[in-house]
């Protein structure tokens, strides 16, 4: 079954003047359809203003469609009765770690979500422990979130979502403010949760090397979906990506440049290892 089903979705930001008359209409999403299967890891790429975040906010009913519909786990987001079920099944992690942490002790922060859902106390603590363990932060449970690094704070935020037992996590540029190690921590945590806990992941990012880890990539441009496919399929199209203000990982760019210069390297090289193997093959032919 589909975890997320987006059907002919359009969304307009409408600006009104003091009298309440419409001043301008901006179509942020224009007739978009796609599905995400349960357990998939999907990355969404797109320039600033391409509609990525607007899309993400539809998935846990922060925004409602102007037209079309969004279904999460079989529930229509436009139906008010589904609101809490949807927010519980699709948790969201945002860019700034400092805006998402509310408690003064790590474990209390993680317990906030399930407590709010009315989960019995014993079970809250079980969930807190399990979630902190899953993101590798159990040893920090009694600490103040204040003292954590950016990557650690983001992992606590993810644990807070996990404690609500969601089936899907939507992450909106979760690494934009982190140092290289923090980025690595967060992305490998997300990958682990996807693999081990079978959580469906929707990752919005400007970092191409993170998108490489996804099962599938969706590229948005000016409110439309313009490309869809596996990382290999997407990152082979270097020029097309650049036309959407995007990029490819450095190693992919290097392979692409060398191919242009006449080296018969493989198509769609995405990692350092793949690059080294491919170059080795050429050398052995010589």
């Amino acid at each position: 079954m589909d975890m997320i089903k987006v059907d002919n979705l359009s969304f307009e930001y409408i600006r009104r003047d003091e009298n309440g008359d419409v001043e301008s209409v901006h179509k942020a999403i224009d007739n978009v359809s796609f599905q995400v299967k349960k357990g998939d890891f999907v990355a969404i790429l797109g320039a600033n203003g391409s509609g990525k975040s607007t899309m993400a906010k539809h998935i846990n009913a922060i925004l409602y469609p102007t037209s079309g519909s969004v279904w999460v786990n079989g529930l229509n987001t436009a139906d008010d009765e589904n609101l809490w079920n949807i927010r519980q099944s699709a948790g969201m992690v945002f860019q700034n770690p400092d805006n998402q942490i509310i408690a003064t002790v790590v474990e209390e922060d993680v317990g906030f979500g399930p407590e709010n859902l009315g989960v019995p106390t014993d079970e809250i603590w079980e969930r807190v422990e399990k979630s902190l363990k899953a993101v590798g932060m159990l040893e920090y449970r009694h600490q103040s979130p204040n003292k954590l690094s950016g990557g650690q704070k983001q992992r606590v935020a993810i644990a807070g979502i996990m404690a609500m037992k969601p089936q899907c996590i939507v992450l909106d540029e979760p690494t934009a403010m982190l140092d290289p190690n923090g980025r690595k921590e967060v992305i490998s945590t997300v990958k682990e949760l996807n693999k081990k806990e079978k959580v469906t992941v929707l990752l919005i990012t400007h970092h191409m090397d993170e998108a490489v880890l996804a099962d599938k990539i969706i590229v948005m441009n000016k409110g439309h979906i313009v490309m869809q496919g596996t990382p290999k399929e997407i990152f082979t199209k270097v020029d097309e990506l650049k036309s959407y203000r995007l990029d490819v990982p450095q190693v992919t760019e290097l392979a692409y440049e060398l191919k242009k210069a006449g080296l018969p390297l493989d198509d769609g090289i995405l990692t350092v290892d793949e690059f080294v193997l491919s170059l080795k093959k050429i050398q052995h032919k010589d």
Partner: protein
Amino acid sequence: MILLQIVFDKVNYIYGLGTAFEKAALKNIDLSISKGEFIGLIGHTGSGKSTLIQHMNGLYKATEGHIYFNGEDIYDPKYNLRTLRHKVGLVFQYPEHQLFETTVFKDVLFGPLNLGMDKIQAEIRAYEAIKMVGLGEELLDASPFELSGGQKRRVAIAGILAMKPEVLILDEPTAGLDPRGRDEILDQIAKLHKESNITVILVSHSMEDVANYVDRILVMNHGELAMDYSTKDTFARYKELEKMNLAAPQVTYVMNALNEIGFDVSTDATTVAEAKKEILRKIGSVK
């Protein structure tokens, strides 16, 4: 003679001095920066990067040690710190959050007017600064809030440039921008550096960006200046960098991996262009 523009002499800074929460944020920093340099500043979150740059324009006062700007001690009671803050322009993270005026032009004009300049002169400066960051004239009267993320950030940078700083410090100027927006801003800064010989200090978490633009890198780690080398020499020490929660650009890893399997390439490439040249040189000599 090379003019030493900024000199740190055994600078220490302790947060919350005399309280139970004392924390040394800068430890014994010795550092000198010459006019016209293009420098990268990297370090894990909490390493002291932001504290360091805020000492450069006197927003923080060192607990111990001295800082000299153009040969003058900035802690001399007669020294005018207000002037220092114009000469050392600091663009904070997410500077677009600080835009507040009704038009782009007015927002950029605020700085020079605040310096006490007459209106005409201030307007000329604002106009020049907007041109310098590559914003079109059609945007002069636009509301800053209608612009894209990248455009807003340029307006914020123009606001600093309009004060004609001798040193421009940018704290993560590309965070949250799409790849093209990132390249556009950094290209513009590089152009500015080349044309006006302004000293630029780029604080970044992106090793690729730093490698593509700067000549020298300062590495902060737990409040200490852990490295101060050329870009190549810095990334050659990628194993040490990793221990400090940092990394090297991806191509540096490619070159090292090639080297390890006996493919005899020089490992000092830090950009795609350099790696391409080196691999072609090697393959060319094999064939």
